[in-house]
């Protein structure tokens, strides 16, 4: 029986793991992998102490730091979470039991949901610009989404692609001004009030249709239109908001189910940042520690 089972190997889950281990809680961390949203991110410039670090390197550092502490780590996906007198968590290797649970499963990139998208995944439709940008050497590409991730991807792509166009559905990009300026300097064409309505091609993507009815010849479509919370594994009784984010008490990260906590991007916190997720993970672990002590 564990004191706490943490589900998720991103900034919130890892920080919670470190804090829980330091409080000597009997801790198990379950995660599909240690990649997540951070691993898929290009250069990160707002993590204090590291003026510029690749997402994959940062999450590796987090994982190494976690593994220096005493806790169990199993790289498996969770299929069911149930509660009777204790929490029972099912993974492929069986059932694990705990007095408390912390859900820190983060978010998954959103699909465009246009014809051709599913068919051409890996054949021109890309969700990890960092991974595949070098494959698009001298190709024409389009990035969909004018947030920070979209702009960062577009900037990264200018090192390889011959032509980079960025489409933003609203009349201005929500990304940081600094990134927009850098993208323009690097030759990215930014088109606002615009998005893709259809993706087509032969073996690979060759054309996209835009919402104004025009079309573009492109080899790659990089989708960066935000993400959805990975909250479906939480028990049905857990309160979620309209966006399917887990509703937490902002002071303690507790949910409406006694002993069940949530932290980071899967929750209804306002800002989804690495630095905020780590803070939330610490907060949740310390709240769980107090909760368990009060039970004794």
């Amino acid at each position, binding site marked *: 029986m564990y004191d706490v089972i943490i589900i998720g190997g991103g900034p919130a889950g890892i920080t919670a793991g470190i804090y829980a281990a330091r409080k000597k809680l009997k801790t198990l961390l379950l995660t599909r*992998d*240690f*990649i997540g949203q951070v*691993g*898929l991110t*290009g250069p990160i410039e707002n993590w204090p102490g590291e003026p510029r670090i*690749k*997402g*994959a390197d940062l999450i*590796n550092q987090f994982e190494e730091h976690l593994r220096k502490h005493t806790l169990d780590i199993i*790289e498996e996906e969770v299929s069911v979470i149930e509660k009777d007198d204790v929490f029972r968590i099912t993974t492929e290797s069986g059932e694990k039991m705990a007095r408390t649970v912390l859900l820190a499963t983060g978010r998954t990139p959103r699909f465009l949901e246009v014809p051709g998208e599913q068919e051409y995944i*890996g*054949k*021109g439709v*890309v969700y*990890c610009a*960092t*991974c*595949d*940008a*070098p*494959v698009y*050497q001298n190709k024409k590409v389009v990035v969909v989404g004018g947030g920070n991730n979209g702009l960062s991807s577009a900037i990264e792509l200018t090192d*390889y692609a011959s032509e980079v166009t960025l489409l933003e559905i609203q009349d201005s990009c929500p990304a940081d001004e600094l990134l927009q300026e850098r993208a323009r300097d690097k030759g990215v064409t930014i088109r606002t009030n615009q998005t893709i309505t259809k993706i087509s091609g032969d*073996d*690979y993507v060759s054309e996209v249709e835009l919402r104004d009815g025009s079309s573009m010849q492109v080899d*790659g479509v990089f989708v960066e239109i935000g993400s959805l919370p990975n909250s479906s594994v939480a028990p049905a009784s857990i309160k979620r908001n309209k966006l399917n984010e887990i509703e937490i008490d902002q002071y303690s990260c507790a949910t409406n189910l006694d002993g069940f906590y949530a932290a980071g991007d899967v929750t209804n916190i306002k800002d989804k940042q690495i630095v905020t997720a780590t803070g939330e993970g610490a907060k949740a672990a310390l709240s769980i520690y107090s909760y368990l002590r009060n039970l004794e």
Partner: protein
Amino acid sequence: MKKITMYTTPTCVFCPAIKQFLSKNDITYTEIDVSKDEAALEEMKNISGQMSVPVTVIGDEVITGYDKKKLQKALDA
């Protein structure tokens, strides 16, 4: 011993995870960086039908992306 080839890019985030997985199992493999080698990129596309890394070839099995279960199955087959 099956021949194992991995097609990668220097920025691929799933590639280190696969390499770690293979190393843990004491398995040797050949890595091909497709960002520097156009012929290799074409080869990867022909084998996998994909324009996305990682592509791992274990014997006759072609595995795209990071899928531990598929990797293990191909190794055990």
